[in-house]
């Protein structure tokens, strides 16, 4: 089976007044149809940029190198117009904050039917019918009434459902979900993720799930890529990663997930220190300053991507459990 998406050596930088900001370095990932990948990392690790870079939604100050092959077609150097033809129908995106990602000045109905009319050339009546159907599929009560509402009249969970409805409205093959649940209550989070899985299953849609929360990706992805300071530092099938994670950073991420059994009021273990300045190149491992297992070598030399077998890649001189 051919891959739906093949990302190779993708790097993204931004021109800023203080110099070049390297947000993503030499990322290489693949995704089969219907498959789902989680991209995990702290804020500023480059995960959102990576997903937007694939879609081509970067601002004009960004520079992008490397190759992105979608359905066997190189899309990284396509003109914007042709890329746009893929959006909505081929790839679609679900945004982090349903509060800001819906246009506050337009009614739900018009936002929902917009891509139907523009992309699928439906007439207004059909678009409306389809909208109602979509709303029903994302389990919105009174879908007819919903069409006339403004976003500010809805709760966060409702809005996220609507955003999902918009994203899937044109039946995309690939769905980017950028922290789709971060802004939601824990109980709603689970429902939304369930809903996404259902919808994907119906259409065999692949998904890139971007999150900072290792807990979220666990049950909903096939593979996981952990990013740190622009690098993919660990890349493995989900089950394997959880079974034998190699990166101290991944471990630290996992420890920082709130758990139900954590007593309320106790502080979550956080990762000490901060991300390095993205405009400066670091000589050694970028995580060195924060790593509990750091040694001289880590500061002196940047670790290459090493293969632990079974598609498990990592970037560490001293992985947990030792080098295979």
């Amino acid at each position, binding site marked *: 089976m051919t891959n739906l998406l093949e990302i190779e050596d993708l790097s993204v930088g931004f021109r800023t007044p203080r110099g070049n900001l390297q947000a993503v370095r030499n990322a290489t990932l693949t995704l089969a149809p219907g498959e789902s990948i989680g991209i995990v990392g702290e804020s500023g690790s480059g995960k959102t940029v990576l997903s937007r870079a694939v879609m081509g939604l970067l601002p*004009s100050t960004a520079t992008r190198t490397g190759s992105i092959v979608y359905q066997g077609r190189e899309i990284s150097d396509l003109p914007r117009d042709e890329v746009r033809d893929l959006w*909505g*129908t081929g790839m679609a995106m679900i945004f982090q904050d349903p509060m800001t*990602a819906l246009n506050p000045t*337009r009614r739900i109905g018009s936002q929902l039917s917009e891509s139907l009319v523009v*992309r699928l050339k439906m007439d207004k009546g059909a678009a409306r019918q389809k909208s109602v159907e979509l709303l029903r599929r994302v389990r919105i009560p009174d879908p007819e009434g919903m069409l006339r509402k403004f976003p*500010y009249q809805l709760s966060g969970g409702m809005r996220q459902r609507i955003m999902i409805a*918009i994203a899937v409205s044109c039946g995309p093959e690939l769905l980017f979900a950028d922290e789709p649940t971060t802004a939601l209550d824990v109980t709603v989070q689970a429902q939304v993720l369930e809903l996404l899985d259902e919808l994907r299953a119906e259409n065999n849609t692949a998904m890139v799930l971007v999150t900072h929360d290792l807990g979220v990706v666990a049950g909903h992805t096939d593979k996981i890529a952990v990013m740190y300071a622009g690098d993919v530092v660990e890349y493995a099938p989900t089950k394997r990663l959880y079974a034998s994670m190699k990166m101290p950073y991944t471990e630290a991420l996992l420890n920082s997930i709130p758990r139900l059994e954590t007593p309320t009021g106790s502080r979550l273990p956080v990762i000490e220190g901060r991300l390095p300045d993205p405009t400066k190149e670091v000589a050694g491992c970028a995580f060195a300053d924060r790593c509990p297992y750091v040694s001289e070598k880590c500061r002196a030399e940047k670790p290459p991507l090493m293969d632990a077998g079974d598609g498990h890649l990592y970037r560490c001189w001293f992985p947990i459990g030792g080098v295979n």
Partner: protein
Amino acid sequence: MDFLQILAKRLVGLVVIVTIATFLLSLLTWLLPGDAAEVIAGGAAPQVIESIRQDLALDEGVFGYYWNWYTGLLTGDLGRYYLAGGYREVSEVVGQTLPVSLQMLIYAQIVSLTLAVPLGLVSAYKENSRFDRIVSSTLFTMVSFPSFALALIMSLVFAVQLEWVDPIGYVAPSENLLEHLKLMILPVISISVGLTSSYTRLLRNDVIQTLKEDYVTMAASKGISDRRILFRHVFRPSSTTLLTSAALNMGGLIGGTIVIETIFVIPGIGYEIFYAIGSRQLIAMQTLIALIATFYVFFNTTVDLITQVVDPRTRERRV
């Protein structure tokens, strides 16, 4: 979000502002040396001066004088211009001149907005491009360019030397529409240049902010065209700011028309204000300034209310 409550609050504010502003003005004119009636109609017959004194309740102190004027205003009596041989009703003068000024201002607003919307949208869309930089610098320069200087230079070039249009005058649209529009060209351009600049810059900055909003990226990810995004998703929220600014300008512009109307000899309210101030028509001056202040505050209020219809975000904030 009690609409009526906001409305009532604003109306009270309007009344308070106009009341105090005009009272201060009364106080100022009251402190003028000399008998106010004689200041108003210097050289008039005693008959006229006496009637002014009675009309204005000048013998009743500054409060009596003010109260007399204020109650008159509330009952629709806008006062009079006193001439040596009688008077002109301010209401009639306003009735004749205000529409002329409004026409001019509305043309100027239409012209400015028509230019500013595409310019602002495109330069925001192409932020920091060569086009954007040229437009931005030009406009920043234009907004600093005094409108009276522009008016004079334009009338030199286009009216006096090239003789494309008449240098001055006003014709009512009902009389001769073509002539009316021709005569309006120079004054409207004089006003519009600064206005266009300030609108464009406002819109550009607002659109740049809006373009960074998630919902714009979201709209883009649906695969709809940039043009559609700009007009459907970006312009509408940004237009609120523009609308607010346009309305706020109406009050200020009325003041600005004084010079333009004087230069182009347009019988508008700006010229009347100047005349009233210059010839010390205290009552007319007070009334006209009250009208302008009312006008200004009224536009503010209206815009605020309209804004809530156009941009539901503000409703959200209020709640």
